[in-house]
């Protein structure tokens, strides 16, 4: 590995959070963006080819060294590290709605889910997956929620755009257009 790749390895190793390419570039003032990218590629390849138990992943808003999944079970069994708890279906549903419709208020989420989401919002907020991002202009000025960087990290997303677009989902809906449904229904009947 060249010296820049080693420097990046040290930095990535020392950081508990993902680091962006721009941040990595500040490590060596003389390195061009292309050189940083090349060094990252070299490092990733080295981990892959040499069969390391860790790999270089571009996720959660930056680069991060993570262990490969095949070792997780043994590590957890030996109680050397613990996986975070899974989210409940209710929490995942709420999170999905916030991710797609942010900024969004509690009432709109409840309208979509058909259930009260007060306690779920509280627990997502406590886990740092959502945050208050403003207030609606609507009556009562309700709080509006959005997803956080921790959300991206927990789902290994670089940015929100990595989630499938609404029109890419099997059930495609055009948003908030009452006539759309009618079209959908009648289209379906015709076909």
């Amino acid at each position: 590995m060249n010296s820049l790749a080693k420097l990046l390895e040290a930095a990535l190793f020392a950081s508990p959070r993902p680091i962006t390419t721009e941040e990595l570039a500040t490590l060596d003032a003389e390195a061009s963006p292309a050189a940083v990218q090349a060094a990252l590629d070299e490092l990733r390849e080295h981990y892959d080819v040499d069969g390391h138990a860790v790999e270089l992943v571009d996720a959660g808003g930056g680069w991060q060294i993570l262990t490969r999944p095949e070792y997780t079970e043994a590590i957890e069994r030996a109680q050397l590290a613990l996986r975070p708890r899974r989210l409940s279906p209710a929490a995942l549903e709420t999170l999905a709605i916030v991710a797609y419709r942010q900024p969004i208020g509690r009432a709109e989420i409840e309208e979509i889910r058909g259930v009260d989401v007060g306690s779920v919002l509280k627990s997502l907020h406590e886990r740092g997956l959502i945050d208050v991002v403003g207030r609606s202009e609507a009556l009562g000025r309700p709080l509006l929620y959005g997803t956080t960087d921790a959300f991206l990290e927990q789902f290994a997303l670089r940015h929100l755009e990595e989630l499938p677009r609404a029109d890419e989902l099997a059930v495609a809906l055009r948003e908030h257009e009452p006539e759309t449904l009618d079209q959908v229904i009648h289209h379906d009947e015709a076909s």
Partner: protein
Amino acid sequence: MDDLSPPASVPETPAVAGHAPVSASGEAALAPPETGFVIDLPHYSGPLDLLLALIRDEKVDIYDIPVARICQQFIARMHSLKLDEAADYLEMAARLLRIKAQMLLPRPDGEEAWEDPRAELVRRLLEYQQMREVVDVLERLGEDRRNRFARTWVPGPLAPAVQAPLALSLGELLAAVDRVLRHAQQPQVHDVISRPIDVDGFIEVVRAVIALRAVARFRDVVPPGAEPWEVLSGLLALLELARRGELRLAQPRPFASVEIRRELAGEAA
């Protein structure tokens, strides 16, 4: 936690997204107690989830839901899952019944004027189903990430990690002050309008009442729904007249209504 697995009656079909078997939950409320009665918890995350499961089980077209049948099934499933008390489910059951009733109404003869009473429900179901698809994506991504460990331990010489500097201006702080001022709960300020308590007026009322009735009750003096000042005035008037010996107040039993009687001496006078 097997008790949180989906019931066997909810098969996966590609037609309807959802229902990946998520077990452990982030919500303590779902954790069964260590001992005692453990309910087989329904896996549905809400009434729309249950409705979608029924549509799938019954293999009906989501765009042409046989409301009567599905409504019946919905209520039956609610009973069997002991969800009868859950407001969200009750509301959906009521909604289904209303749609069912609307379907029974004769359609107007005009061609395009009729709006399918199921339209709103179908829209919500589709929206919910789309969201379940996203849940599947998130679940897959989250599970994949969950199975990889990041390095959490910062080596000694570097600890404590240096915090990145803050980009924060006084303007931003003041803007935040402004938001707080604009959005903070305004303290509830009540305008207190003093009303004179009209004891004299109520003394006349009480005299009129006991002139008509041998035994009167408090509600004969102060009508139900009276304002506080009226209640107070009536009470003070009664006490005043009792003090003057014009009437007698008695309570036959604890908590019974107070009986108001003319004082015989007063009557004689």
